[in-house]
């Protein structure tokens, strides 16, 4: 495995647009290439990880279902903005997968630590 690493940043809530699924697809594809990939959820993207989604009534695929396959793709570096959670009255325990919460100071170093940063 090369030292190159990709960070995918997502900032959008799920379902209202395809952004959440599109970001996830980029991450899944990185892992197909056996490239280390991390996902960073900022702002409304923390809603993507909320448990208990049931989008059958709006004709969409359940994002929670796809997210739960991430460990099988060896994608386990999931970062969530601590303030994004707090502002929305959420806790890490409300989320479907274990995540690492990061504060503002850690945000800059996370970006610095990855070779390529992709916003979706």
């Amino acid at each position, binding site marked *: 495995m090369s030292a190159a690493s990709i960070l995918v940043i997502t900032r959008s809530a799920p379902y209202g647009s395809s952004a959440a699924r599109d970001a996830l*697809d980029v991450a*899944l*594809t990185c*892992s*197909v*290439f*056996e490239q280390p990939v991390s996902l960073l959820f900022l702002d409304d993207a923390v809603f993507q990880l909320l448990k208990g989604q049931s989008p059958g009534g709006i004709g969409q*695929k*359940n994002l929670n*279902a*796809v997210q*739960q*396959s991430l460990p*099988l*793709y*060896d994608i386990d570096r999931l970062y969530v903005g601590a303030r994004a959670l707090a502002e929305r009255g959420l806790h890490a325990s409300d989320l479907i997968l274990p995540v690492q919460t990061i504060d503002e100071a850690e945000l800059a170093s996370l970006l610095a630590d990855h070779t390529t940063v992709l916003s979706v």
Partner: protein
Amino acid sequence: MTTEMINGHAVAFDDEGYLQDLSQWSPRVAEHLAAQEGLELTEAHWEVLHLLRDFYARYAHSPAMRPLVKAVKQSLGDDKGRSIYLMQLFPGSPAKLAARLAGLPKPDNCL
């Protein structure tokens, strides 16, 4: 697009041989598609096909090769959770061929 009669039902496939209507899948469809590939489905094939259908039901997509191998490893053990094993059962591109026989959509995240 082609339509074939399988067990008295008209079943439609796209150009790459994937089912148009996933609900038309049955074990007979899998056997029919396998025969076209020159394969006879054994117990070893079936346990992978069932695993794939479970994967799809749970994770809402057809897996790429790597997660497929990992899922097989977790359910069927280390001996089977290897790409060489899946290549023997489903020659060529196991993730694509097995998804096709299992009546799932073509895996999206391919190279």
